[in-house]
């Protein structure tokens, strides 16, 4: 780990004013991602600004929904009664991620900002356009069993590692961000950006922007939602494929649907194709099969990860059956 300076911010204004003008300055909260990357020399901040003293830890519920403070831990959010009751997919996704120790440390803001687990990104001897723009992508044509099958580009085929962010897509979450010019709200489906020719740019945030919280609006589909994670071992592993499914049902007919996928794309992936195939249709096996085919029709593998397309199709079907049965 490179030497760095350390500062603790006592209020949001000071935190933003410290990081915004300084490209060598990074926020640190749980630290589970940034310190790991620093040990691998992938990141070399000159200044870490500790934001854990900021008053952004609370989880509150009101008539409109649940407000998750950006500094709430994964463990706290997963166990919050208002989250479990009204957004089961969010609680399930949080508990499907990392380990109990890491969930006690990692914060929600950091979770949606976490970097890819692509081995080439984390190995500074390898080509990676995300880490070093212009060097190329060693994963294309390399060991790519764990890589993306949709939303990729000739510059990057990594996957986004977050389970939580996938669940957020299925409940229409809104990210509250503090920047130099004040606070703004960003719907989660416009928060992350595809790699295109600039895989080093991963979200719409500007340098120094600070996530203050994530808001979950109540909805019928959010209340009837679930998360399915398929992985190489039973626990404590990133997704090969994951599915967040949310269904609003009315006498067996699907009135509203959200389908989001993890482990398949460089961003948490929302399938509007699947949602369109579900909406207005009977909640039945043939409908779910059609939706799963619609979601996977545009996917393309890179050799070792071709299996993810069929796995995603089956996982989507199963997640929809599970979600419909819970209604």
């Amino acid at each position, binding site marked *: 780990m490179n*030497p760095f300076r350390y*500062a603790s911010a006592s209020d949001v204004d*000071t935190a933003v004013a410290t990081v915004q003008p300084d490209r060598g300055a990074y926020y640190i909260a749980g630290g589970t991602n940034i*310190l790991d990357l620093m040990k691998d020399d992938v990141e070399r901040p000159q200044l870490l600004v500790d934001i854990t003293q900021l008053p952004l830890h609370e989880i509150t519920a009101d008539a409109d929904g649940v407000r998750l403070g950006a500094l709430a831990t994964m463990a706290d959010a997963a166990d919050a009664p208002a989250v479990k009751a009204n957004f089961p997919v969010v609680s399930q996704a949080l508990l499907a991620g990392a380990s*109990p120790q890491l969930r006690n440390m990692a914060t929600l803001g950091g979770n949606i900002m976490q970097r890819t687990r692509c081995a080439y990104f984390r190995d500074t001897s390898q080509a990676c356009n995300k880490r070093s723009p212009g060097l190329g992508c060693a994963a294309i044509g390399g060991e790519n069993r764990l890589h993306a099958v949709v939303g990729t580009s000739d510059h990057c085929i990594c996957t986004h590692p977050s389970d939580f962010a996938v669940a957020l897509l299925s409940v229409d979450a809104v990210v509250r961000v503090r920047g130099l010019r004040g606070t703004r709200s960003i719907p989660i489906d416009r928060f992350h950006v595809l790699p295109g020719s600039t895989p080093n740019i991963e979200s719409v945030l500007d340098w120094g922007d600070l996530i203050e919280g994530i808001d979950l609006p109540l909805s019928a589909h959010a209340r009837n939602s679930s998360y399915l994670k398929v992985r190489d071992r039973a626990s404590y592993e990133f997704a090969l494929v994951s599915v967040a499914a949310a269904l609003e049902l009315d006498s067996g007919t699907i009135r509203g649907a959200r389908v989001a996928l993890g482990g398949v794309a460089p961003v948490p992936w929302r399938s509007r194709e699947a949602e369109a195939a579900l909406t207005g249709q009977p909640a039945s096996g043939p409908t779910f099969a059609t939706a799963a085919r619609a979601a996977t029709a545009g996917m393309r593998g890179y050799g070792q990860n071709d299996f993810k397309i069929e796995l995603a199709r089956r996982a989507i079907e199963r997640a929809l059956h599970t979600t419909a049965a819970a209604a």
Partner: protein
Amino acid sequence: MQLRRVTRRRFLSRLTLPALVVGLSGPRLFPAALAVNVSRAPARGPEAVEFSLNINGTTRALAVEPRVTLLDALRDRLALTGTKKGCDQGTCGACTVLVDGRRVNSCLTLAIMTQGKAVTTIEGLAQVDRLHPMQSAFLEHDGFQCGYCTPGQIMSAVGLMAEHRPTDAASVREWMSGNICRCGAYPNIVAAVQSVAGGAV
């Protein structure tokens, strides 16, 4: 909480209502735009910085660089070598300690960020002449072979007890999944944890 149908548009519009902001308790969520002349947070380092930590109920003075992890501070500066360094990247759980009663990976924790918190290591579990029940259970159930992962397993299990999770074998395996045992002593580890967490010491 009452479930009430709200559209996203309505939810978003409500977010900007000053009345709602005033109505919220706790920290202010929607502050005004930044003042032009907000000062920056004072920084220390990268050279060694003096501070103290509360370890096992004792205040311990340290002078370490900000980049020193809690794990390295415990082992290399405070001679508390019970906490083990396995992967040093949050994967194996050998470095598990309690911070304010919650289990964390000390390898991914900066020592300087632990100021003002209560750290408990494996050395802090036993009373003067009496092992913690979880330590006794690991002995009784032979919950180890080489023993390297054991301090982390025990600290994680003590943290687990405070979380009040289900204590059937499958649940214990899931909630202990952050601790890897290369010797494969899992059946006995699970039995040891169940014997204490299940209340049948």
